[in-house]
C-alpha cells in the first residue's frame, strides 16, 4: 500500500519535474531548433516545432561569413587563461585567510567582493586610455588580466570556503613532520582541495566566457572572442532569426557541453562551499 503511494508520488514528481525542466530549457531548445530552419520557416505562422525541412544552411552561411574558429579559440584562451591566472593568485590568499585568520579576514573578503560592484561603463574611458598607453589594446593578454581581476574576488571567496572545511589538524601533523610552508600548501592542502578548485575553475570559466562588456570594448580583430562574434549577428538589416539562432547556438554550445559534462563539479562549485 505504502509502496504504491510512493510509486504514485514518484510518477507525479517525475512528471512535474520534467515539465518544469523542459519549460526552463525551452528557450535554448527553441533556439537550437530554429537554427536548423530556413528563414521563412523561422517566422512561419503558426510556428513549426519539428516538422520542417532540416537544413544546415544557416551554419554554413555563418561559417563562411565569420572566422568562427578564431573567435572560439580567443574565448578558450581568455576564459581559460584568466581563470588559471586567477587561481594561482587566489590559492595563497585563500589559504592564509582560511588557516591564519585574523580579525580583518572577513572584512578583506567582503571588501574584495564589493570591488565587483563598480559599474564597468563608468571606468571604460580611463581603462581604455591605460591600455592604449601599455599597448595592450586588442590583445588576449589584456583580456586575461582584466577578466582575472574581475573574477578574482569570487575565486578567492570560493577557495576560502573550501579551504576552511579542511581540518587544521592535518596541516599541523604535516608541520610536525617538518613540512615547510611551501610543501604544506603544495603537497598537503592542494590535493585535498582539488574538488573545490575544480569547481571554482569551472564556474569562473563560465563567468569569463559570458563576460560581454570588456571583451567587446577592448578588442578589435585579433583578440575578439565569441561575444564579439554575436555582436555581428544581432539586428542586421532584416530579421534573420534562423541565422541569429545558428550563431547563438555556436556561441553557447562549447560552454554548454563543457558544463554538462562536468555538472557534478559545477553543482558543488555553485554552492560556493557555503552550504553543505
Amino acid at each position, binding site marked *: 500500500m505504502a509502496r504504491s503511494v510512493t510509486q504514485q508520488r514518484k510518477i507525479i514528481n517525475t512528471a512535474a519535474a520534467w515539465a518544469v525542466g523542459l519549460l526552463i530549457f525551452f528557450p535554448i531548445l527553441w533556439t537550437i531548433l530554429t537554427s536548423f530552419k530556413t*528563414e521563412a520557416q523561422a*517566422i512561419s505562422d503558426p510556428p513549426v516545432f519539428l516538422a520542417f525541412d532540416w537544413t544546415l544552411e544557416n551554419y554554413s552561411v555563418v561559417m563562411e*561569413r565569420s572566422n568562427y574558429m578564431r573567435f572560439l579559440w580567443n574565448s578558450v584562451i581568455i576564459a581559460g587563461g584568466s581563470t588559471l591566472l586567477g587561481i594561482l593568485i587566489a590559492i595563497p590568499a585563500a589559504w592564509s585567510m582560511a588557516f591564519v585568520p585574523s580579525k580583518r579576514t572577513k572584512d578583506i573578503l567582503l571588501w574584495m567582493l564589493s570591488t565587483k560592484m563598480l559599474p564597468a561603463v563608468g571606468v571604460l574611458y580611463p581603462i581604455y586610455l591605460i591600455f*592604449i598607453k601599455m599597448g595592450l*589594446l586588442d590583445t588576449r593578454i589584456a583580456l586575461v588580466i582584466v577578466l582575472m581581476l574581475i573574477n578574482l574576488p569570487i575565486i578567492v571567496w570560493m577557495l576560502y570556503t573550501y579551504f576552511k572545511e579542511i581540518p587544521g589538524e592535518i596541516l599541523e601533523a604535516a608541520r610536525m613532520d617538518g613540512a615547510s610552508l611551501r610543501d604544506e600548501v603544495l603537497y598537503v592542502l592542494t590535493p585535498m582541495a582539488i574538488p573545490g578548485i575544480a569547481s571554482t575553475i569551472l564556474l569562473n570559466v563560465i563567468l569569463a566566457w559570458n563576460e560581454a562588456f570588456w571583451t567587446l570594448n577592448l578588442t*578589435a*580583430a585579433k583578440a575578439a572572442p565569441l561575444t564579439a562574434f554575436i555582436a*555581428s549577428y544581432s539586428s542586421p*538589416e*532584416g530579421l534573420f532569426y534562423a541565422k541569429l539562432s545558428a550563431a547563438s547556438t555556436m556561441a553557447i554550445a562549447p560552454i554548454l557541453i563543457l558544463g554538462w559534462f562536468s555538472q557534478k563539479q559545477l553543482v558543488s562549485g555553485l554552492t560556493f562551499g557555503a552550504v553543505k
Partner: protein
Amino acid sequence: MSLKTALCAATALTVMGTTAAIAETITIATVNNGDMIRMQGLTDDFTAKTGHEVEWVTLEENVLRQRVTTDISAKGGSFDIMTIGMYETPIWAKNGWLVSLDDLPAEYDVDDILPAMRGGLSYEGTLYAAPFYGESSMIMYRTDLMEAAGMEMPDAPTWDFVAEAARAMTDKDNEIYGICLRGKAGWGENMAFLTATANAFGARWFDEDWKPQFDSEAWSNTLNFYIDLMNDAGPPGASNNGFNENLSLFQQGKCGMWIDATVAASFVTNPNDSTVADKVGFALAPDTGLGKRSNWLWAWALAIPAGTQKEAAAKEFIQWATSKEYIELVAENEGWANVPPGARTSLYENENYKEVPFAQMTLDSILSADPNNPTVDPVPYVGVQFAAIPEFAGIANQVGQEFSSALAGQQTADEALAKAQALTTDEMEAAGY
C-alpha cells in the same frame, strides 16, 4: 660576403620596399548591413589586386558606434578604416581625427560622387569619408492594397493623403496595417524619421540661437499627427519597431505603406525574402505643402582615422570599395538590383541600372534632400534628420525615448515634448551653448 656587399644588398632591399607596395593587413570596422557583408565576401578581389589582406570587425550598428567613437576619441588606433556616417564625419574631421581624401587619383573620379553625398561627407570643402552607399527615405507601398482602397498614389503625396490612405488600407483583423513607421527609440531610429517628418511640418530642433524648439506648435503638430496615425493604422508594438522590424513586417505583407530608407527597396522587391515583391510601388516622402519633404539623407562611408600606420593601404581599400569597378563587380555577382546605391552619379546613368524599378525614385529622393538647408525656418546646424553637433546623438537618444513612450501610450505627446524640451535645454547648457 663582405660587409660592403651586405650593406648594398640591404640598401637594395629597402629601396625595393619603399617603391613596391608592401603587403599589409588592414583592420576595418564595419556595420553588419547587407551591403557591407557582400563587400566582405568580395574581399578576395581586393587582395588579388593589391596584395593587402583585410581583417574585418563586423558589429551591430549601436555597438559599432560605441566602439569606433571610443577608439578614435582616445586615439586607440585599433582600426585602419572605420565605417561611419554623415553625422560623425564633419564632427570628427573638425577635430582633426580623419585623414583627408582629397588626393585620390583621377581614375577614381571623385566628381562622380553624388553632390549631396560629397557635401555631407566633407568638412570645409574637403572630403573626409568616401560613400559606400547612400540613401534617402521614401514611401514604399502595396499597389494591390492601394487599389483595393480605391485610391491612387501620386508621385509626390502630402501627409494628409498618406494618412487617409493608411486608414483606408488598415484591416487589423487580417493583420494588415496601413502604415508602418519607426517607433523604436534612438537617434538613428525613430528620431531620424521624426526629425525628417518635423521638417515637413515646419518644425526645427533649434532656432538660430541654439534654443531648443520642442515647445513650438509645429513640433506638437508633428508628434500628435504621428501618434494619431500610428494608433489608427500602425502595427502592434510599433514603439519597438525600427528598420528591421518594419522591413520584416512589410516583407510578410503586413504593411500597406512604409516610409523608410531607400535601400530597403531592394529588400522588399527581392522575391527570395519578400512575399510581396511584385506588388510594391514607390513615391517621394510626403510633405505638407510648406516646401520641405519628410525625407532624410544618409550615407555609410569609409574613413581613415588619423595616425594609422597603414594609411596607404587603407586608401587603396577605399578606392577599391567605393569605385565604379566595385559596383560592376557586385552587379556581375549579384545582379544590378543589389549594387550599393546612392553614391555615384554614373550608376544612375547606367542603362542596366535604369531598369531597376526603384532607381529613379531613389535618386529623386536623394536629390530632394538638402542638409545645408533642411528646414522651413532657418537653423544654425547642418543635417536633415540630425544636427551635426557632438551633443546631438546623446540628446536625440533621450528625446527618442520620450517620443517612443508617448507612442506606446505611456504619456501624451505634449508631455513627451515638454520633457524633450527640458532635457535638451539641460544638455545644451551642459555643453556650453
